[in-house]
C-alpha cells in the first residue's frame, strides 16, 4: 500500500487506536497488499468517547462490555450488580483504553 493511503488512514482513524500503536499500524499498512484497502476502509470501529458515555449510563448492567465484545466480563458485571458498583466506576477509567485495544485487535486480524 502506498504511503499516501496509509497516512490518510492514520489521519482519519487515529482516535480509534492507542497513540503508541500508530507507528506500528502505519508500518503494517505499508506492508499490506493494495487489494485490502477497501476492506480496511469499510471496517467499523468503536468510538472510545461513545463507549465512555455508554459506560456511564449503562455500565452498571455491563452493556459497555457487551458492546465491545467482552461477553464474559459483561455477564460477570451484570450478575454482580456492576461489581457492587466498584467495577462500574473502575470501568469508567478503563473502557476507553479497552475500546482502542479491541479496535486494534480487529484491524490486526484483518491485516494478518
Amino acid at each position, binding site marked *: 500500500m502506498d504511503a499516501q493511503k496509509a497516512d490518510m488512514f492514520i489521519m482519519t482513524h487515529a482516535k480509534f487506536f492507542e497513540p503508541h500503536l500508530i507507528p506500528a499500524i502505519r508500518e503494517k499498512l505499508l506492508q499490506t497488499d493494495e487489494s485490502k484497502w477497501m476492506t480496511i476502509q469499510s471496517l467499523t470501529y468503536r468510538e472510545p468517547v461513545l463507549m465512555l458515555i455508554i459506560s456511564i449510563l449503562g455500565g*452498571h*448492567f455491563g452493556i459497555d462490555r457487551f458492546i465491545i465484545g467482552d461477553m*464474559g466480563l459483561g*455477564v460477570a458485571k451484570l450478575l454482580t*450488580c*456492576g*461489581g457492587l*458498583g*466498584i*467495577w462500574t466506576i473502575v470501568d469508567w477509567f478503563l473502557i476507553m483504553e479497552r475500546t482502542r485495544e479491541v479496535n486494534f485487535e480487529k484491524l490486526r486480524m484483518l491485516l494478518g
Partner: protein
Amino acid sequence: MTRKNLYFLALFLGLAGQLWIVYSYKKLEKQEEAFNTCIFNRLTGLPCPSCGTIHSIVSIIHGNFRQALTDNPLGYIGILIVSIIPYWVLADLAFGKESFYRFFLLADRMLKRRWVLASVLSIVFLLWIVKLLHFFHCF
C-alpha cells in the same frame, strides 16, 4: 484482554467484594441497612436484576438457603465468584500457571455463541421480572 490486566481486575474486584460482604454482614447483624451501591436503584427506586445479592449471600452464610433464593438466586453465583476467583488467581500467580486465564477465554468464547448468551440473559431477565412483580406486591 491480557492475562495481566484480567488477573489484576479479578484480584482487585474479588478482594473488594469480600471486604464488602464482611462490611454488609456486620451491618445486617446489627439490623442496619448496608450502604446501597446500586446506581439503578438509587436513580429509579426499582430493584436491578442483581439487587438483593448481598442479602442473599448473608442468608447463605447463615445457612438460610430458602431465604437466599427469595432475596436473589444470583447470590449463589455471587458467593461462588467471590470465594473462588481471588484464590484461583493467587494460586495461578504463585505457581506461574494460567488456568484461570484459559478458563476465562473458554467462558468468553462460549458466551459469544448467540444461543448461550441469549439463554443467560433470558434467565437473568426472568429473575428480574419475578423480582419486580414481588416488588410491586403482585404476589
